[in-house]
């Protein structure tokens, strides 16, 4: 069954692995041991579940969209990860990793962030647990997501610009890894997606499994015991998508990941190795990693989590692409029809549903609404005038 445990080398099929500098191998091994032990420990689950409920606000609701469904001719359900504390699904993973870091005796968290949602979530967890926090963010992203930069600083985190390369998410990951190489004895790298070296893709998926488990139960209530025809989510690194897919992988539901056309690693990449993992990667003929281009800072990434590459390779999920223009339309569509301003990232999933509505007509689609749009309002104000 897909979405189980990876093999001993941390692979899902041919994808994944642990391609890190020697310095980090013991830290990855220690993290794997700590995660296995915590995940088998009822007291760890009890504490995490308590935080998810009392602090993050889980379970998040499932919303049936009547006006949107009527407009599209497709029955649309939204999993409302936008209503979590800090405004996105990212908090699920971050609370898990922060508790794990504390369990390992680490006092400092480093993180990369694209749109700033993972950075804000990490800064939040660090504040909650009294840990030091440093967030690396691409210089370009710091400009387009200035509000989140301020939020992170307000939460007590240090935000450091990544000023090399494309100055976006990819480079923020590079900087976070360089920090970790130097500080590994006291620091946990709180990676924000289902990517990186083993055990991160597996561990981060497990921390987001709660999205899929809740959604499956909630959808069956709404659909009279049935599962949706299609479950869809946006894919950058792919954590929110893996989280919701994990609840439906053993159902008849079709799983559809939606990538930005300018950063479609599954759709347009070939296998490569960067950031500790083997996965589909946008790269040139020599193996130089290409820059992604997307309206959404959170999806502006040339790689993808290895389990998505695997799900694509075995045909259990398929991956679609949407353009920035389609995303801008979807952003407005959901705002206008349902009174929900989505983040630009999940607007990708809606953009695909909207574009392909004739193929989906009469069916039921569950979209993971992974985050809210507050952070994107300033950017959209400029675009829409």
């Amino acid at each position, binding site marked *: 069954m897909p979405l189980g445990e990876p093999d001993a080398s941390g692979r899902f099929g041919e994808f994944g*692995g642990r*391609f890190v500098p*020697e*310095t980090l191998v013991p830290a990855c091994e220690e993290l794997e041991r700590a995660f296995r032990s915590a995940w088998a420990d009822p007291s760890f689950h009890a504490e995490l579940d308590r935080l998810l409920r009392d602090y993050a606000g889980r379970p998040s609701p499932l919303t049936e969209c009547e006006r949107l469904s009527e407009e599209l001719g497709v029955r649309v359900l939204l999993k409302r990860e936008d209503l979590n504390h800090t405004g996105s699904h990212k908090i699920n993973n971050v609370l898990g990793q922060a508790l794990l870091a504390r369990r390992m005796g680490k006092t400092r968290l480093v993180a990369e962030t694209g749109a700033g949602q993972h950075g804000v979530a990490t800064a939040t967890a660090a504040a909650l647990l009294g840990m030091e926090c440093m967030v690396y963010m691409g210089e370009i992203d710091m400009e387009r997501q200035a509000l989140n930069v301020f939020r992170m600083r307000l939460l007590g985190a240090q935000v450091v610009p990544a000023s090399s390369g494309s100055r976006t998410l990819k480079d923020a990951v590079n900087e976070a890894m360089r920090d970790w*190489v130097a500080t590994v004895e006291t620091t946990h790298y709180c990676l924000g997606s289902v990517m990186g070296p083993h055990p991160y893709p597996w561990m981060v998926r497990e921390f987001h499994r709660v999205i899929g488990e809740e959604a499956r139960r909630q959808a069956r209530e709404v659909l009279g015991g049935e599962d949706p025809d299609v479950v869809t989510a946006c894919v950058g690194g792919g954590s929110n998508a893996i989280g919701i897919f994990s609840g439906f992988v053993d159902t008849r539901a079709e799983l559809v990941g939606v990538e930005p056309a300018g950063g479609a690693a599954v759709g347009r990449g070939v296998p490569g190795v960067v950031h500790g993992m083997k996965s589909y990667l946008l790269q040139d003929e*020599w*193996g130089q*990693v290409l820059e992604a281009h997307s309206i959404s800072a959170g999806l502006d990434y040339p790689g993808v989590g290895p389990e998505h590459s695997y799900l694509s390779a075995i045909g259990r999920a398929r991956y679609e692409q949407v353009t920035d223009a389609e995303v801008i339309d979807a952003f407005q569509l959901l705002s206008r029809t349902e009174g929900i301003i989505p983040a630009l990232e999940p607007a990708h999933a809606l953009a695909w549903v909207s574009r392909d509505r004739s193929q989906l007509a009469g069916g039921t689609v569950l979209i993971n609404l992974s985050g809210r749009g507050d952070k994107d309002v300033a950017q959209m104000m400029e675009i829409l005038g």
Partner: protein
Amino acid sequence: MTGAPPGRLEVALRARRDAGRKLLIPYLTGGLSPDWTDVVRAVADAGADAIEIGVPFSDPVMDGPVIQAASEQALRRGTTPASVLDALRDVDAGVPLAVMTYYNICFRMGHERFASSLHEAGVCAAILPDLPLEEVGPWAEAADRVGVETVMLAAPTAPDERLPRICERARGFVYAVGLLGVTGERDALASSALVIAKRLKAVTDKPVLVGVGVSDAAQAVQACQEADGVVIGSALVRRLLDGEGPGGAHAFVASIREALDDA
């Protein structure tokens, strides 16, 4: 492959070490400037025992600001793995050459093709810092088949039981990572440099060279209290980025050579 005869790099380094010499391997980024192959010849002439050539990669996570900047500059000049190897074929440095790059460059070309490209360019060895022991097998076996030596890195964080396994897999020399961190100059040699060198020397007869954070002649001499030699990268590359050409590189490497010989 434990019984395989040592390759050209290891033979050369052992011979010099066993003659009482401390080993010096300068690093420079291939394609950095139009005259970069002149720099290779200049540092060979200045007393390098081997030379490490960086094939620039877009995302060098083990490298600090200096080598990042050099990689970006080389890539902007249109440098590719093929252009570096083509140039090395004709460089005739007179000392063994090793290529340092990141695994995706090798993976993209394919293990067999990358190994034979190095071999055909006269390169003895490869250093891939993001390919740890658990992942190195398929590449290292392809490299062994054409006689290309895979240098292994050993970090201060490695537990004792790991070091002999790294040394056994290493060809050419064992690269002792001198500190917790990325490449770059430091004010002083980290104490971890001496510790990791000593730990490695206790478990292997292969040459052990300290790199990462070895910044000047005094630090090189200090590292060689335990190690067989040093790799010096950022301190040289910074001079090249500042516009010091083959002459400046020669003077810098010669000053380190002299300090090592006098120590």
